[in-house]
Structures are given as C-alpha cells and as structure tokens.
C-alpha cells in the first residue's frame, strides 16, 4: 500500500504495548484505537523481545481499518536496542527464528541475543536502531556494524525533553545522515492518563515502592501517542525524519495475513490422496460402528461431511488427529473426543468421538462450516496419568521444530492487581489483604464504597482511591506468558518460522508466544490434548474386571438408571457433585438423553438464565409443554420447549431472530470469550427485536437473551454434553454392578473427582462392601478386590512410595514377610507402615511396630543372614480408641474403626448437637438444629452470587449446609479455615416426587478444629500451658484430611 505522507501526517513506529510485560501500560487494542483517534497514518507495535501481542493488534487494526506494522524491539547484550519490522514473509520467519534462538539460551522467560545473531538473520528486515541517551563512540561503531548487515537501517530519534535534546538530535543526524533519521516518540502508553500506571509497573518490575523508585521512573509523562501536528512541532527543523516514516511504510509490505498455514503432511498410502484416504478410513470405521449397516441418514451425513471437508481442505487435519488417537488406542490408553468435534459423524466413524449421530441430532455446522473460514478444533481427553505418553509421542513424531504447545496469557485479576499495586504504593499489608479479600466475591461491585466501609476502610482516603483506581486499570492487562494445558500447534514447515518458540518451565517442553485466540485468528491448527481423571479410573476398573473397551459396556441398563434416580452417585462422572446429586432425584433420568440433559443443566448457563426450573416443572408434568412458536418446535422439542444448549441458542438466533449462520457464530464466539462477557451487549437489541418482529413475546425473547448471556461464563454444547454423558453412563454402570472394583479404581486414580478417599470408602461400606485396611502381608501398591472385599493399597499411606511397595511385593513372592525381611526397607518406609498399622499381621501393634521400626539398622544384609533381631520392645502405653482413629487419619486420611465425630460426640463443646442422620430423619422443615462434622467440601459457585455451600460429615452421614451471602462475610474465617465445624441453623426440606432433599441454612458456625487434636488424648484436662504455648496442631500431620474446595 503506497501512499505519500503529507507533512501533517504521522505514524508512530516505536510503540510498546502491555505485552512488553510490566513496561508498556496499554493494551494493543487501546494503542490501535488511539492511533485512529489521532488520525495517524499507521502504527508499529514492537514489544520487547516478543511478538506475543501482535495478533491482537492485527485483529483490532484490521477490524477498524488501521495500517499496522508488526515487529519486535530486540534487546542485545552487546549493542543498542533495535526495532525490527520484517518486510516480507521470509523476513518474518527470520525474526521468529531469531527470537526463538534468544529464548532458547535464556532462563525462564528471558531472551539473550547478540549482534552476531542479528547479522545472520537481518535480510528482509527494516531496522530502526534506538540510540542510548547520549550517542557515543561505541554506539557509532555498533551503528556502523548494523548498517552493514544487509537490512534497511534507520536511526530512531525521539525527543526526550532533556536539556540536551537539540544537541542530541544534531549528533544523531550527523551519525545517520539526515536522510536516515526517523522520528519516533518511543511510546509506552496510549494516553497521558496512563502515566501513573506505567510508573507503578516499573515499581512492580523492580520490586520497590513508588517512594523508593527514585530515578528509575520516567521524569515526565510524554511517552504517549501524540497528534501529528505536535510531533511535527517537536521535530521542527528535522522534517526529513518525519518523512522517513513514509519510506519505512513503503519498504515494509508484510502483514500477519501473509502467513499461510499448512497442515502437517500425514503418511498416506501410495496412490491415494488425503481426502481419499480419509474417506476410506471413515467408511471402514462406519462399518465397525454399525455392524448391521449404517442407517441411510447416517450414510448421507457422512457423505455430506466428507464433501465439506474436501471442499475446505481439512482432510489432513482429521488424519492427524486420527493418528494421535490411534497411537493412544495401540497403547491401551483410553481417550475420547469432546467439545464441538462430537458433532461430527466422521469423527464418530473414525472412533475419535463417542457420540452416535443415530442417537443425538448433531449440528455439523457447529463444528465446521463453509463460512467460518477457520480450522476446526478437536479436543481429546486422555487418561490423566498417561497423557504424558501422548505428548511425548507428538513431540517424537513431529519433532520440536514442528510441534509446540500454545501459550496462555496470564492476565492480572483483581486480587493480584490490588496486591501488586498496593505493595508498590506502600499501603499497609493489612489494608492490602482486606482489599484482596474483597475480590473473593466475584460479580459484586468490586471495591465499591459500601464494601470498603463494611471492611473498615475509609473510601474517601486518597491513598485508597488511588490504589483502587490503578488496580482497576491493571486488571485484564497481561502479566506474563505461561504454557497452555495441552493445546498443541503442529505445522508442516518449521514452526519457529511462523511464531517464536521458547522453552517452558518443564523440561523437554516448548511453547509458542501466541495463545488460543491468536491461533484461531490466524487460522493455525491446534489439537487439545487434555487429561481426564475419570478415564484413568475407568480403565483401571476395566483392568480389574477384564473388560476391553468402552463399547463393551451394555447400554441402557434400567438398574443403572434406578441407582441414579435415587441420587446414589458418589464417584460417578459429572453427577457426583452436591448440586448434581440434588438434581438427580428431581430430574430422574431414565434414558441416555436424560443424562445428556443432566450433565448440561447444572451449569451456570441455564441456572443464570432461569431455565432450570421450567424444564423440571414440565418434565414432572407440573406445567404444560407449550412451544413458544411452531417454528421453534424442531429446535426445542427434545428439551420440552426450554433452551438448554449452546446449539439451541444458536439455532434460535438463526431461526427466530433472523441471524445468519455467520452472525450466530459471532454470537457463539462472544459467548465463549471468557474474559469479556459484556461483549454480548451489542447483540441484545438485535436479537430481541428480531424475535419480536417475528411474533415472539418480548418476555420470552429477553429471557432467551439472558440465558445466552449466562452462557458467556460457561455453556455447554449439546455434543459435548453427549460425550460426557457417555462416561457418566459407563461409570454409573461400573458403580452399580461392580461397586468394589469401582471404588478401588477411584482410589487408585486419585487425585480426581469431587470426593476424598475417606468419602469413597464410606460410600463403599454403606453399600455393603467390606473394606480391609492396608497391610503389609496382603496389600499391593494399588487397592485391590479380595473376594468381593476392598483391600486398601499401600498407596493410601501418606508418604509411602511405589518403589517400596514393589520391594514388598518382591519379598512376599520370595517368602513370608517378617520384620527381619522388612529390615531391608528404609527406615522411613517402616515408620510409615508402623504408623498406618500395616504391620498388624506381623503380630505387632502400632506402638510396638513404631518402636521396632525406629530401632532397625539400615546396614546392608550380611551374608550371615538377616540382621540380629532387635530387642523386644519395652512396655508401651496402650493406644486408646481415639488415638487409633487419630493415627489412622494422620497416616491414611481415613479410618475404618470409627469416625472422629463418633468419639468426640461426648465432648462438652458438642453438647446439644445431633447426628446428621437424626437430622435427616427427624427434624421438620424450619426446625432449629445444632450439628457438627468434618468439612469435606466447600463450594462458592460463581452462579450463586456469593453463597457458600459446605458439606460436613459425621459418624452417621453427611449434611449439606448453605451460608447465604449476608452471613458469609461474618463467618469468613470459619468457612475458610475450619476442618471441624459446629453448626447452628435451620433445616430446609424440599420434597419432590417422594424424594426429600434436606439442607441446613446456617445461622452461625464455630471452628472446632482444635478438638481434632484432642482425639489423641481423651484424658482429663492436662497441663494448662501445653496448649497455650505450643498451641495449634503441627502443620505437617493433620488429623483430619483437607477438604475439597471449589469455586
């Protein structure tokens, strides 16, 4: 694009955005907007040793029509800073390789470059050399050297507002020759109002307060985008420097749109094309999936999809994913595709996904459509313990040069923002913590005057206002780059010629500088390799039962659904949470599709959109199922007229409000953007008016829109729900028919799921399964099933290691285990076994075993036989029941003997409490009740506006507590830190179709955790000072396990 620049036009070519982490203070979008506002001809974004922000700038500039140069500001160890703008595609590749080289040399998130490196890669670049405060002989030498590299070189001149500006400009002009001087303003932020934030960022970066920062801060606030006329005035007498910008703009022809992405080449049998090969595989797979022949509709769908894939050229992408899944299958790793990919019949035929198009009505356009113009996105879940094998396979197959993980940009959130800002401004630590704690309640007006006053702070204090104002500006600005969970980018040519690749904190991993949004925007391909704990659990259970594959599980077993209708779902995928278990008896699933709905319904989307209760009412026959309009029957029929899924929202937009598929897609995109739910506002009018114009009621239209807005945080696509429902069914079937093996598999796959081992074991016992404690004579590392009883494995013992367990296995194979044989294990292993009571079968009680374990020498076995048997133990005090229970919890996190509450019930502080079971059975709705229990789950769901849900457990069962927001603040300390809670509250009973759901609405809580430490000593009160001086329980060995906390 060549146009001459008039004397009054200007283009800023040295702008740093917030992706110069903690140096630039404005988002790339803000820079673009401001440049447009000022009427600049173009903008050049150059962040320090990175191009992490350029895609965002590119998208913003393209949308708003601003010419953008993308490049990077390179910092050298042995030379001045150089802004590098690639002139063409090859130049961009060289820049990426240069940055990759620098990052590879440096420690985490650093970059080390030398001028030699630039010399190798300078062809095809336009370079702007940025001089130091005073250009000296060394700089002149560097400039000469750079000028000889074969790139186009200019010298950047900025007005620094120093007394020697005029002299400096003269000197620079002399160095460069007037023709090669280019005017810049070395911009750090888009507008003068950002100066304080930039100062604060410097302080954060240097780790000092603003009062100490001194000369590290800029002396003035002039480093912002300025109007062309002002820049012309500042460079009066150096008009050539401004005109030089036009030369640079003409020399640089590259934009990010020039990057053409190519899928990796997949091996295709000779004589076939990728499309042909894919088709062959798909038909072969369909034959396996439908042994009796595929229904005509499915065949048609597959054919249609293959045509579209061929038209868009995506065949190689499917082949790549197929290859990865194939590897996993060959290794016996369970995997399953999720997300929108489950909308594809071809994926089902290939075995990538598990959603049968014959059962679920799929919307392929949700996954791939001709208009979208962007590659599909296939996410695959793998067993979480074996995901690493898949990752290494990908690296091995594609090589580090063609495969890397996507980045995740970590942005400032309110809590981190106020912490960093508060520290930089020198606020008191207590004040900062109070402000940070307020961000605990999302959704409320953050740091509003009332909340400040409630917390005891003065909203009028200037220090406070300043800190809050700056923290608000800082929120959502990028803080640093981190590695994404599992999104892989794979390319045919070198990846580091598309985007810089740098090493991650984990060894043998590398990641690129762009995140998922950037990748989508540029059309690169990404495969998400994700981890799912339940897949590990299922496979382990299959191994115990001899089942080969997910497809071998009998479908639609009514006993499974009976179990789910009872709400008996601990351990079952997705439906085991408190909220889900409450929903099961209400929704009463009887078919697979009911599970699909169950998975999707207990989510913030439908809850916020107020669609849950209407659905349940209709399902239970309390309300008529009327369609809002005949046109929507097809869309909403299977959910009884109530929109529950993303695809339905899209379809409503298309059919009821007249959106085009492209616009519906935009809407879905806006729904999926986690960070800016407010972007949906634009669509509000459009949709509501569109629906009203087509005869729908305004009320319904607004409700529909509100639900869609709720999806902004997290909504489900139907296909995704269906994929998950598949696993729900399989795990429920295993729990129903093989509860012991299922419990063992759950325990062997921890950490995962909603519950702690203690609850899993309790649930197993409630179902009549005998549970045997870990014992050195019978236990392997994993939990196993012995004649229908669950034998806890040695992995349950805290601190125990798998290699020790392997050694014990070996010893057991040789001969009977006795203490002399065990003496070959390290002392720590023996002590762990002793403390867990696992040496019981050797005839030693805990204390005796502990004594012996402490004595055993660790010398290597002598040829004379096992070591001299240690002397018999002295007489040690007998362990009381409570001490056993406490020791059990300390060692394994659970106890088979008794529940701590059973032992503490007689303690004075629990006087007047009743058991959870009693409350469940006897207390009426509205009745006052006092309870006590161990905290097992804490939840503060975002959809609940600050309500906290707590589950407590005592010797008879559990109770679900609700703490309303009004009480949360007052009880915050107890909620956050108590392990044992005393509760006073009112019972709330709801009966629905003869299933009772009981909650306790909390009035007050008491932190009774210190009582847990008394389990050891249920004696009369002992020395007074012992508790006082050395007070709280020792942190490293808790008597109660930690609870699971969810937000």
């Amino acid at each position, binding site marked *: 694009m060549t146009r001459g620049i008039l004397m009054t036009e200007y283009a800023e070519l040295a702008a740093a955005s917030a992706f110069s982490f903690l140096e630039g203070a404005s988002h790339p979008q803000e820079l673009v907007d401001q440049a447009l506002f000022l009427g600049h001809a173009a903008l050049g974004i150059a962040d320090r040793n990175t191009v992490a922000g350029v895609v965002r700038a590119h998208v913003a500039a393209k949308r708003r029509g601003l010419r953008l140069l993308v490049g990077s500001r390179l910092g050298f160890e042995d030379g001045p800073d150089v802004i590098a703008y690639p002139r063409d595609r090859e130049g961009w590749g060289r820049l990426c390789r240069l940055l990759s080289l620098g990052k590879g040399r440096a420690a985490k998130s650093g970059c080390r470059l030398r001028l030699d490196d630039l010399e190798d890669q300078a062809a095809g670049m336009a370079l702007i050399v940025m001089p130091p405060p005073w250009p000296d002989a060394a700089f002149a030498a560097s400039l000469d050297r750079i000028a000889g590299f074969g790139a186009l070189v200019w010298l950047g001149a900025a007005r620094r507002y120093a007394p020697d500006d005029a002299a400096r400009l003269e000197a620079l002009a002399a160095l460069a020759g007037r023709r090669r001087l280019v005017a810049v303003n070395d911009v750090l932020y888009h507008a003068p109002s950002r100066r304080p934030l930039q100062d604060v960022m410097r302080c954060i970066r240097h780790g000092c307060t603003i009062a100490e920062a001194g000369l590290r*801060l800029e002396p003035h606030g002039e480093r912002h985008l300025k109007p062309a006329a002002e820049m012309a005035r500042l460079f009066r007498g150096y008009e050539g420097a401004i005109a030089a910008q036009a030369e640079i703009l003409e020399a640089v022809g590259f934009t990010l749109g020039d990057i053409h992405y190519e899928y990796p080449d997949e091996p295709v049998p000779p004589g076939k094309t990728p499309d042909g090969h894919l088709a062959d595989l798909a038909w072969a797979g369909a034959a396996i999936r439908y042994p009796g022949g595929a229904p005509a509709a499915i065949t048609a769908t597959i054919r249609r999809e293959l045509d579209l894939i061929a038209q868009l050229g995506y065949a190689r992408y499917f082949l790549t994913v197929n290859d990865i899944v194939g590897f996993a299958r060959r290794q016996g790793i369970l995997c399953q595709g999720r997300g929108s990919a489950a909308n594809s019949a071809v994926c089902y035929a290939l075995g990538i996904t598990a959603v049968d198009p014959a059962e679920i009505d799929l919307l392929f356009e949700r996954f791939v459509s001709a208009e979208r113009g962007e590659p599909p996105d296939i996410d695959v879940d793998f067993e979480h313990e074996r995901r690493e094998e898949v990752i290494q396979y990908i690296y091995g197959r594609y090589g580090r040069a063609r495969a890397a993980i996507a980045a995740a940009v970590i942005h400032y959130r309110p809590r981190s923002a106020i912490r960093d800002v508060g520290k930089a401004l020198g606020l008191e630590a207590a004040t900062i913590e109070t402000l940070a704690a307020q961000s605990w309640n999302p959704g409320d007006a953050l740091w509003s005057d009332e909340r400040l006053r409630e917390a005891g702070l003065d909203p009028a204090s200037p220090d406070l206002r300043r800190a809050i104002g700056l923290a608000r500006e800082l929120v959502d600005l990028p803080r640093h780059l981190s590695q994404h969970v599992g999104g892989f980018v794979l390319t045919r040519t070198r990846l580091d010629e598309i985007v810089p690749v740098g090493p991650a904190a984990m060894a043998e991993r590398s990641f690129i500088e762009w995140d998922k949004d950037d990748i989508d925007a540029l059309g690169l391909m990404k495969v998400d390799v994700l981890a799912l704990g339940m897949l590990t659990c299922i496979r382990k259970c299959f191994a115990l039962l001899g089942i080969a594959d997910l497809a071998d599980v009998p479908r639609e077993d009514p006993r499974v659904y009976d179990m789910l209708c009872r709400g008996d779902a601990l351990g079952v995928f997705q439906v085991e949470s408190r909220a889900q278990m409450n929903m099961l008896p209400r929704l009463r699933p009887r078919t697979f599709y009911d599970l699909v709905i169950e998975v999707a319904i207990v989510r913030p989307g439908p809850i916020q959109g107020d669609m849950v209760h209407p659905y349940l009412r209709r399902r239970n026959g309390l309300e008529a199922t009327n369609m809002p309009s005949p046109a929507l029957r097809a869309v909403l029929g299977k959910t009884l007229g109530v929109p529950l899924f993303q695809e339905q929202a899209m379809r409503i937009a298309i059919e009821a409000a007249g959106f085009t598929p492209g616009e519906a897609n935009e809407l879905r995109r806006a729904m999926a953007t986690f960070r800016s739910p407010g972007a949906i506002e634009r669509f509000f009018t459009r949709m509501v008016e569109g629906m009203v114009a087509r005869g729908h009621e305004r009320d319904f239209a607004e409700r529909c829109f509100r639900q869609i807005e709720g999806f902004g945080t997290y909504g489900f696509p139907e296909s995704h729900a269906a994929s998950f429902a598949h696993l729900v069914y399989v795990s429920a079937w295993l729990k129903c028919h093989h509860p012991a093996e299922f419990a063992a598999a759950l325990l062997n796959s921890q950490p995962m799921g909603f519950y702690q081992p203690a609850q899993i074991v309790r649930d197993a016992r409630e179902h009549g399964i005998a549970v045997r404690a870990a014992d050195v004579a019978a236990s392997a590392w994993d939990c196993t099933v012995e004649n229908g009883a669950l034998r806890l494995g040695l992995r349950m013992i805290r601190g125990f290691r798998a290699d020790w367990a392997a050694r014990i296995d070996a010893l057991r194979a040789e001969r009977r285990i006795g203490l002399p044989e065990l003496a070959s294990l390290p002392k720590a292993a023996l002590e762990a076994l002793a403390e867990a009571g696992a040496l019981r079968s050797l005839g030693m009680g805990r204390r005796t075993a502990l004594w012996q374990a402490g004595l055993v020498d660790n010398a290597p076995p002598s040829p004379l036989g096992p070591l001299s048997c240690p002397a018999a133990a002295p007489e040690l005090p007998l362990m009381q029941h409570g001490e056993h229970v406490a020791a059990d919890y300390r060692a394994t996190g659970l106890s088979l003997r008794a529940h701590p509450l059973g032992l503490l019930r007689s303690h004075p502080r629990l006087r007047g409490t009743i058991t959870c079971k009693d409350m469940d059975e006897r207390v009426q709705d509205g009745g006052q009740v006092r309870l006590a229990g161990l905290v097992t789950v804490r939840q503060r769901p975002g959809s609940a506006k600050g309500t906290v849900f707590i589950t407590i457990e005592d010797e008879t069962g559990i109770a679900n507590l609700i703490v309303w927001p009004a009480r949360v603040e007052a009880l915050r300390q107890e909620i956050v830190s108590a392990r044992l809670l005393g509760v006073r509250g009112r019972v709330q009973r709801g009966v629905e179709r003869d299933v009772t759901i009981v909650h306790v609405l909390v009035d007050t809580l008491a932190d009774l955790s210190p009582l847990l430490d008394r389990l050891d000593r249920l004696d009369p009160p002992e020395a007074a000072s012992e508790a006082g001086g050395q007070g709280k329980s020792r942190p490293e060995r808790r008597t109660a396990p930690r609870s699971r906390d969810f937000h």
Partner: protein
Amino acid sequence: MLSIWLAAGLPASNPSDAPAERALDQLALRCQGFTPLVAPDPPDGLLLDITGCAHLFGGEARLCARIGAMLPGARIAIGGTAMAARALARHGITSDARLDTLPVTALGLEAPVARRLHRLGIRRIGALTRLSRSEIRAGFSEDLLLRLDRLHGRVAEPLHFLPPPAAWREAESHHEPLLTAEQLRAALARLVIRLCDRLEAAECGLTILQVRFRRVDARVVGETIGFAAPARDAPHICRLLAERLNRVDPGFGVEGLEIEGEVAALPAGQPELGGAFRPEHTQTFDLLATRARLSRLAPVASHVPERAMRRIPVTEPPPGWPPAGHPRPVRLFVRPERIEVIAPVPDDPPLLMRWRGASHRITRATGPERIAREWWRHESPEAAGRAEVEMLRDYYAIEDEAGQRFWVFRTGLHGGARPPRWFIHGVF
C-alpha cells in the same frame, strides 16, 4: 534455681527499645537485684540461681511474691536444676507440681523426637522412667537422655549469666557551694580525669556526656555534649565542657556535680580508618559542633530538583554522588522566586527575563527539560486550596548578555485553565 516465664510477653516498658533480646537483657539486669547470677532464657524467660539468696528476702515464697509483683503475668517456679525450674514454670499447673507429671514437651525436645514420643503414647516425664537408659538411647536419641540427666541434676547445664553493668558515672559533693566558673571547671576536670582513666582501662570512649549540676536551691541544671567519634582525651573533653559552661547558671551555688556518659568501644591506639575521621579531626569537629549546627548533603533519588538532596550529619562518611545527569545550578534557591518572562509559545526558551527589578536579555538557552509532578505525593490541604497543583515544570538554563546564567522554569502549559507562571530556581 528459679525460673521466670513471661507468659504474657515482655513488659512494654519502653517501646522505643531495640529488639527483644535487649529488652530481655534489661529485664535480667533488673533481676540482678535479687541475685547476682541471672541468665536470660530466650525468647521469653529468665533463670535465676537463688542458692543462698532466698533467706535474704524472707524465704522462697516471699521472693516469688516480690518477683511476681515486679512482673505481673509472669509464671515463676523453683526447681532443683535449671531444666526442672524451667519445665515447672512453663508446664506446671501449680507451683509445687511434681516433675513426673509434667509433659515430655517440657524437656524442650526437637520436633521429630517429640513426635515419636507422642506417637508411642509416652506423654509424661514419669513414663520415661520406665524405660532403661539403653532403651531411651536406642529408641529416641542421645539428646533426650542428656536432657533427662540435666533435669535430674546428674549432668550440669551450662548457663550464661549476665555480667553486671558498669556505670560510667562520676560524682562529687561539696559542703561549700561552688560559685565561680573557675571552681566549676576545676571540679569537672577532676571528674573527667577519673572517668577517662576508667575508660582507658576498659578500652572504651565516650559518645555522649551528660553533666548535671545540683544547685543549692535543689534545682538541677545540666548540659549534654556529643562527640564525633568515641573520645577519652581528658583535656579535649574539658575544653568542650568549658565552652558550654557559659550557658550554665549556677544560681546561688552548686552543691554537687555528676557526669555520666554512654560509651562505645575504642581500642587503644586507634588504627587508621580510611575514609572515616582521623583522631585529630574529630576534635576540631567537636569544637565546631558545640558552636554551630553542621551537616552535609547527600543525594536523594528524585527527579524533582528540590527533593534531590537531603542533610545528613557530618559524622557520616561522605556519600557518593551519582554520575552527572543533566546540569544543575551551583546554587539552588530554597524558594523559587517569581519572574516575568517573554517567551514564544508553546515551549520555546525565554527571550527576555525580568527579575528583582532588573531586565535580562537572553542570548543562549537550553531546554525545555520537563519534570512532571510526583503524582503519588499528597499536597498539604492548605496548598491544595491555595494554588493550583502544578502538573509539570519545564526548566531552561539561560544565559543573558552579560554572561550570567540562570536556571528558570515555567509551571503549566499554555492553553491550560490558568496562565503559566515563571520562576527562577537557581544560578549557575
């Protein structure tokens, strides 16, 4: 042995006191009134060896009562050994509890051993007696055995008792009141010489010396002098005191004099300390310091010129100044003065300046050097109300026809709410 445990924490006597160890030491000094053998037992206890002292206070019970009165909230116990007393104070419920009933944690064990004892169910010291020595050694640690031995007095526990403090005081009384300066000088000289002899023996020097005169009418007047470096040169000290004597009003006569000082280490034959004061210089500085306030300047990291330096005492070594940044005037006015200026807008240097009634035509200038306000500082409420808070200054170094150079600045930009004002801040 008597053990005091400050269960309620150290008494908050003097909040400005240095860290807790010093506070504990001072408390120990106070307890030296009961026995000369006092050892601090950090972090919050004291041990007193009261062998042979108790009867002076009317018996052990009365002694405990007196200590208890002095230190409210403290727990006091007496035991046969230091370890026993300590254990009883911290863990005994009543003052005559038996050792056997105390918990094992009273032995001050390391965490792993304490944990093992707890796990094995051995909770009280009495339970340990059921184990043989070899069992204890094998099952736990040598350290546990040692502590038990110390508890029962089989092995002695080393304690570090505080030495009594020396008082650097000398005093004199007179039947006939001293009236003349001559007499006072002579008396002071005597005291000073005695003190300096003691200082020499202890290898210390005075850092501060207080002089107090007790007058006939019972009023006390005094002076304090400080020294640039620790001093024990008697003539020098007397000369300094002589200077100050002019300010002392003896009234109808002085009955008693007292001098008291604080000291710091001063080894004999002070070696050469590069960069610090040499002995002969300190005395000059001391003399000057008694007549006038001396200070020197140190740099402060700030862009704002008037905040870029601060005063420090002369005694501190000369600070390093950062390498020259932008040129600064030799003389900076404490308060900038208003001037009138003719300058092209918006930010060119001035052409004409009028200051203190004189006109200057400007021939050369550099600038503007822009220094923006330090936005994080509060303006005083009066200042905020009185004048518009300045947002920035543009400084210019200017030279007039006569060759004089000035440093002027303009606050605010043209086109703002108020017209900008010009000031002169210094001369080169």
